[in-house]
């Protein structure tokens, strides 16, 4: 089994040996995938709503996610880990709130002037916002990692087929489902939702119909931002909030959007499931190349179906 590797000459496949697997763990792998999909779904849902309604690809979306994470962590720490459940769980909402506020400012001062402008300007201004946010976060919450594992610890574990599994992950999944459904209902049932869909379908037509594009755009952006912030808040009990925290989720959200189709909510759901499972199972089976697999999938899909699985 062992072969002595000599540093200068290890073939790169070398250390990815046959991983001996416990079949009983499969449910856990799947659950991990679902958990990961859950918060990627929240992020990409926001990204997609903004993209669909305003036609702006928000590169600073990850930073909104990060602000949510930092805010929630900060609040929970301020409440001190021992605080009662009735305090620390609502505390998670602060993440959504702060992200919404930041989103409001961003939309009003940066995105709105960009409506009529060319694509490169829209992308660049969000890129500028991304850089800006990184340091704003550093200014507000400092450069160090924030741990706030309160909500995670409180819930403890259950056993699934004899494997311990943290209840909090299930809690996150359920929340994500709830949010997803309510967004869907909102989009099909309420007047605003219908108008938003109209805009994303055909901007000119919607304008002709006399919809208040600006107001609705602001609303969509704030909604998307809030979703991102909420995702951050849900994640932070399990992981520390760091600088550059938003980068990886942003890229993953891109992949989701690419796989699912630009501006498609159904696409966001399917895409995040694909990404989540790929990552979890990828790590379990081929630890060497988890990251690359995702981009490979995304690229293949883009090549064969440019508009994504559910794109128009």
């Amino acid at each position, binding site marked *: 089994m062992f072969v002595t590797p000599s540093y200068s000459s290890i073939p790169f496949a070398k250390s990815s040996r046959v991983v001996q697997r416990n079949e009983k763990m499969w449910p856990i792998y799947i659950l991990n995938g679902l958990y990961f999909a859950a918060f990627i779904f929240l992020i990409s849902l926001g990204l997609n709503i903004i993209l669909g309604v305003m036609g702006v690809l928000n590169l600073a979306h990850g930073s909104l996610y990060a602000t949510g994470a930092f805010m929630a962590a900060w609040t929970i720490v301020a409440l001190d880990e021992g605080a009662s459940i009735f305090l620390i769980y609502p505390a998670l909402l602060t993440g959504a709130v702060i992200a919404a506020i930041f989103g409001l400012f961003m939309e009003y001062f940066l995105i709105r*002037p960009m409506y009529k402008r060319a694509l490169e300007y829209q992308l660049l*201004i969000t*890129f500028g916002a991304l850089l800006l946010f990184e340091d704003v976060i550093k*200014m507000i919450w400092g450069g160090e990692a924030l741990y706030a594992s309160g909500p995670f610890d409180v819930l403890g574990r259950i056993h699934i087929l004899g494997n311990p599994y943290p209840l909090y992950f299930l809690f996150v999944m359920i929340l994500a489902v709830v949010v997803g459904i309510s967004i869907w209902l909102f989009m099909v049932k309420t007047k605003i939702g219908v108008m938003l869909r109209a805009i994303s379908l055909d901007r000119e037509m919607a304008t002709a119909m006399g919809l208040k594009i600006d107001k609705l755009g602001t609303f969509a952006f704030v909604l998307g931002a809030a979703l991102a912030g909420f995702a951050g808040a849900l994640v932070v009990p399990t992981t520390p909030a760091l600088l550059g925290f938003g980068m990886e989720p942003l890229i993953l959200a*891109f992949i989701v959007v690419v796989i699912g189709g630009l501006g498609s909510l159904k696409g966001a759901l399917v895409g995040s499931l694909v990404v989540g499972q790929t990552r979890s199972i990828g790590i379990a089976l081929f630890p060497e190349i988890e990251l*690359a697999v995702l981009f490979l999938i995304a690229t293949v899909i*883009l090549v064969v179906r*440019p508009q994504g699985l559910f794109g128009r």
Partner: protein
Amino acid sequence: MALKRFLMRPRFIIYAVVILGFVFLPRLLSTFNLILFEYGLTFAIVALGFNLLLGYTGLLSFGHGAYFAAGAYGVAMTAKYFPAHFSLEILIPAALLVSLIISAIFGFVCVRHTRIFFSILALALSMLLYALVFKFYHVTGGSDGLYVKIPSVFGYTFEGVRRPQFLMGFYYYFLLGVFFAALILMKGIVSSPFGKALQAIRDNEVRAELIGIRVRRYRLYAFIISGMYAGLGGALWSFVNGHVTPDVAHWVFSGEIVYMTLLGGFAVLAGPVVGALIFTFLKLYAMGSTEYWMLIIGATLIILVLVLPAGIAGGFAKLVAKISQHFATRAA
């Protein structure tokens, strides 16, 4: 006579002054600033190529870091696997070849789309490259990156020469030469019939097709050329930096390339060059002066986009035009 008139043209005098300035720069600048300037030059080459795509073909690539990385890793991998052939005259063509191949493959996929689709696809592809470079540790050195030693030139090895001396001396002039070659070539390309065709595609895809231009094919040509410029820049950069890491394939670096180009202004040929040089110094001095350097360059970018969309060189050109027009009307 004609020559005399040519020599007397103010434009020519400006050129002459600029070139002389560049030549004598090592005397004027400190080692550190000269090296910074060399970073600027390499990025300038990249931005030039990038602008052929953005400014002249109307395609915004958010993944140009990939081709930069292709060039840089082309050099670094040669250093790792063929140490015997580590000389400039081999490395540069090698890097060009690698970036040609990669940009041809990626380009073929990308040019089937336009607008935001194109941008995202380019981004995804560059991140794919990033992921591969990052993951295959034993081949590419993963996130450690690879060390790039001082290359030899036509058999002459710079024995016992410290990198700063190398960069101050031979390499600076080599870089300068390559840069001007690249600049002149690009000038030729954009004013040539081919360049006109690209601009036609940018302005009006439908009509371009209708006067007999194979739009997609020409986009691909433009993509490959600009990819090779990026690769060239990457290769030259790797000797200045002395170390290559996957960061250059990450989309944030691609974002910086876009930043440079718009900072200078993509409507003018010289825009990207100006942008690249200014950006390099701006970034490093921001980093040196405060820990909140991202805030500075981020804010700069936002203000730029809001206030001076034409970029610095672009704005300047506009100004000049306005003034000259003003005087023209006076005279009339």
